[in-house]
């Protein structure tokens, strides 16, 4: 039996729904505890995940005690939660409706909509509905106005929310409630919409809502069916792809790191960050995941966003951007919210926006190189952008930076940043050789690339430890060192990498196949994506393929019952930590599954395969 109120659900007790413009978290107690409209980074109207009293929520659940099971409708982002009560069984369906662009041209649809339907499938069930929205991260109450059959209207700044219900609701000052006994076959439906730019569209309930649910399921299933992954981990890979797709912002092609802010990396501590932005550090792995699964349109939209939405700061790149390529807002604290399990402060905006991270250039260029395997070439503007980034790397690679993990302790000479600078120049040279990016200064790029290699091989290699190290001339270990083979800098089976991997396991191993990202006291959780990097490293030659499969299967058990991963995993309990669900963890999972399959089939790893054979042969034919 689940506790009903008061306590915070665990992070893994949530599921996510969305429409590729925003997302909501639904707990396994039937409550929507997080929703920001109209964009991922907009202020919330439900934020109970960050404050049980003031955050706001929308709960639909049985009034007595109950047990719960939940699942996504096969290969979709439509969430079903089944409540088993004393006298019956009821299923709650949650979704943000989606449809094709063609359908949208034929029907009037709300700009933003969240649909909830509860259906009693057996016996009878008393259900409580409690709708308590709070605008601006819980700071503002929302006055409700009943407009009869049209529903309940709430005005906030320049937008209007409408709640439509298939049964009358009791309206209080700030909340709408109802309690109803459902008998087998009874159905309740709700539609919450938001309009900002134009008069709201008020969707009809009843058959219309059912049709919206069926249409959405079909849309997601069709999308999932486009995946070309045929390996043994289909369910986990499909769920990760669907989660990643939910984090894409379709109007611009950007992909947010997570839909939430300030879910803690250590419970009760201050490691709470706003992840509702787009991190360039995720780009290489994201394109690898999308392209590897056959979602070339998504990869193209993302890469276009990467290269063109970031134009205002080029050739320098910022660490993170909003979905429209603006620099993320200043970091501020919302002191009124108590934070998830008292993990203060709740932060809005991200101060990492002003950090220097040299690795992101390599991530972006490697993303372009991976995508280049599937196209004939790049247009001149894209070529110019890539060359501009390459020149910047050639001139600045030896600059100390904050590195991929964004510690707020000042710049250092990170091995991983050097590795990605090496990758940037190496990929540009490779693309140049294939004729994809002509006109690069080959001589200076080759010289600088070789200088970076020399520096990594000498100063990032610690002879005493017999291991590569996290920063030049140091003794520190870091999970990013596992990426040396992934980017093609070292062989995974080389003696240096064998001993480095041993040291990483010694220093960062967290039991099972879990891995911390770096050495820290006290430690945070094991870092999701690093655990999957380890699988890839072992599969690429750092161990055996069987060992890699075993690790991967072990890691899959740390996802929640829906197959979703947060940023980190608490090694003792297996609980999820950090923002949820996390794109970086899911692209790590997909990439690891792809690598396992590639290794099984003896296919080349993408790091060593730059440029399209198809494109090359077409070019040769033209010549």
């Amino acid at each position: 039996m689940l506790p009903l109120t008061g306590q915070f659900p665990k992070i893994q007790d949530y599921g996510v729904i969305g429409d590729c413009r925003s997302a909501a978290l639904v707990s396994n107690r039937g409550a929507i505890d997080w929703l920001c409209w109209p964009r991922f980074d907009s202020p919330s109207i439900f934020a109970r995940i960050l404050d049980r009293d003031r955050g706001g929520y929308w709960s639909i659940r049985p009034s007595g005690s109950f047990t719960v099971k939940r699942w996504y409708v096969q290969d979709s982002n439509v969430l079903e939660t089944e409540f088993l009560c004393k006298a019956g069984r009821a299923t709650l369906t949650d979704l943000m409706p989606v449809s094709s662009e063609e359908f949208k041209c034929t029907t009037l649809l709300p700009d933003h909509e969240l649909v909830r339907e509860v259906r009693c499938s057996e016996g009878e069930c008393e259900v409580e509905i409690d709708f308590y929205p709070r605008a601006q991260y819980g700071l503002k109450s929302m006055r409700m106005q009943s407009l009869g059959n049209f529903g309940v209207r709430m005005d906030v700044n320049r937008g209007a929310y409408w709640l439509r219900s298939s049964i009358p609701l009791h309206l209080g000052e700030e909340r709408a409630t109802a309690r109803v006994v459902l008998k087998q076959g009874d159905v309740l439906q709700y539609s919450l919409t938001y309009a900002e730019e134009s008069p709201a569209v008020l969707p009809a309930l009843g058959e219309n809502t059912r049709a919206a649910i069926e249409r959405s399921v079909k849309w997601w299933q069709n999308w999932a069916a486009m995946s070309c992954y045929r390996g043994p981990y289909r369910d986990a890979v499909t769920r990760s792809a669907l989660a990643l797709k939910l984090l894409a912002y379709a109007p611009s092609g950007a992909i947010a790191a997570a839909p939430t802010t300030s879910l803690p990396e250590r419970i009760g501590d201050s490691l709470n960050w706003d992840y509702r932005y787009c991190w360039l550090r995720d780009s290489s792995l994201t394109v690898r995941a999308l392209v590897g699964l056959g979602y070339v349109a998504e990869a193209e939209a993302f890469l276009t966003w990467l290269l063109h939405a970031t134009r205002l700061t080029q050739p320098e790149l910022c660490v993170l951007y909003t979905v429209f390529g603006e620099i993320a807002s200043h970091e501020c604290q919302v002191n009124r919210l108590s934070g998830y399990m008292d993990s203060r402060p709740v932060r809005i905006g991200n101060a990492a926006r002003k950090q220097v991270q040299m690795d992101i250039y390599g991530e972006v260029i490697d993303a372009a190189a991976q995508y280049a395997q599937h196209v004939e070439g790049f247009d001149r503007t894209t070529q110019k952008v890539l060359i501009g980034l390459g020149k910047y790397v050639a001139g600045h690679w030896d600059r100390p930076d904050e590195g991929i993990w964004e510690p707020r302790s000042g710049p250092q000479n990170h091995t991983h940043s050097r590795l990605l600078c090496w990758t940037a120049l190496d990929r540009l040279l490779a693309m140049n050789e294939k004729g994809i990016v002509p006109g690069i200064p080959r001589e200076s790029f080759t010289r600088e690339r070789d200088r970076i290699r020399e520096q990594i091989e000498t100063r990032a290699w610690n002879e005493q430890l017999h291991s590569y190290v996290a920063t030049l001339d140091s003794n520190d270990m870091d999970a990013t060192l596992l990426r040396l083979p992934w980017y093609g800098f070292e062989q995974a089976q080389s003696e240096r990498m064998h001993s480095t991997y041993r040291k990483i396991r010694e220093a960062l191993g967290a039991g099972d196949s879990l891995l911390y990202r770096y050495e820290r006291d006290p430690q945070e959780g094991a870092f999701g994506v690093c655990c999957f990097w380890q699988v890839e490293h072992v599969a690429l030659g750092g161990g055996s393929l069987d060992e890699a499969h075993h690790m991967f299967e072990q890691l899959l058990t740390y996802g929640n019952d829906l197959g979703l991963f947060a940023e980190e995993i608490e090694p003792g309990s297996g609980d999820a930590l950090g923002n949820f669900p996390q794109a970086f963890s899911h692209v790590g999972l997909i990439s690891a599954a792809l690598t396992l399959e590639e290794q099984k089939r003896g296919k080349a790893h993408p790091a060593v395969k730059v440029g399209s054979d198809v494109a090359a042969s077409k070019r040769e034919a033209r010549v």
Partner: protein
Amino acid sequence: MNWGSWLLWGFLATLLLTTVSSMTQGMGLTRMNIPYMLGTIFTPDRDRAKLYGFIVHVAIGWLFSLIYVFIFHSMGAASWWRGAIIGVLHGLFVLTVVTALLPGLHPRMASEQHGPTAQNMLEPPGFLALHYGIRTPLAALLSHVVFGALLGAFYHMK
């Protein structure tokens, strides 16, 4: 109506408008590139789009300068400041009305309601075209003011 003067200065003012727009992009003030946005109506090819868009933009600018000339005549005089004021109004019209209509008219531009289907589309401009950078309204107004001021300063009424 002095047709010769309109043809000459309408054309030159449009070229100047395009130049100032390109400069504001080059200086990192905005990502709004009107010739590119117009050109992608006809082709997804980025390089060709810029060329086609440039031609369309010059034609539209030339046509718009005719409206400026009519307004000068209705006022009884042309001057740089009259042109600049019309330029401000013109710029505001582009920023509020044209950018709001564009996602509906443009076959390759996403709207704010686009998704989840992934297609390579131009991102929508948003209110005052702010999605293309926070200084976009400033850049757009500047280029239109320069356009109007040049036309007002050099157009001969007779």
